[in-house]
């Protein structure tokens, strides 16, 4: 095993282990966090980075031109689409009246954007 192969294996397996650990942490956050919004932040950030690191580790361990095209395209698309999906889910969660955790300090929208545009009110209770 040449020195280059040792470095390749170390970097590749390191990336895979780091990525899978991040996905596991996101799963832990899915259990432990108190409301939908904090759970959303765990999934949409930790799991995205975990998936991207795992895919880059796969590329380092099995390098070829076609793999590089596919993996880099997948990682780029992941980084572009994941924030959009997370934002859409968070907006839908707020508009559908998903409750905030009891310890939340700020609710800048104050329950305003809970109804559809046609004037029916959402099911979030009015604040005070």
């Amino acid at each position, binding site marked *: 095993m040449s020195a280059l192969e040792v470095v390749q294996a170390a970097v590749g397996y390191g990336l895979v282990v780091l990525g899978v650990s991040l996905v596991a942490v996101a*799963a832990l956050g899915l259990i432990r966090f108190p409301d939908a919004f904090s759970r959303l932040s765990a999934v949409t950030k930790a799991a995205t980075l*975990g998936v991207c690191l795992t895919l880059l580790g796969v590329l380092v361990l*099995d390098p070829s031109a076609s793999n590089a095209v596919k993996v880099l395209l997948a990682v780029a698309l992941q980084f572009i689409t994941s924030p959009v999906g997370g934002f859409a889910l968070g907006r839908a969660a707020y508009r559908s009246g998903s409750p905030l955790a009891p310890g939340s300090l700020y609710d800048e929208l104050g329950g305003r954007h809970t109804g559809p545009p046609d004037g029916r009110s959402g*099911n979030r209770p009015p604040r005070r």
Partner: protein
Amino acid sequence: MIVVDIALVVLALALLPALWRIAVGPTDADRALSADHVFFVFLAVAGLLALRLEDSVFLDVVLVATLVGFLATITLARLVDRGRS
């Protein structure tokens, strides 16, 4: 290779919280983001299977599943938004 095997087991265990969260809720938004998490775990599993089975066709699966997962997330978000009683 043993690292990849352990990683696959960890990813399988990472699916269980999503299953529990889909069953328990409490809101539809939690269920939608659990589905999102399942998609992420699936992407990582497909990438690792490309390594484990030495078949790079799984990387094509990853590429397609990235786009399908995004569309599924957007669709679920719209359903959560419109589906309230």
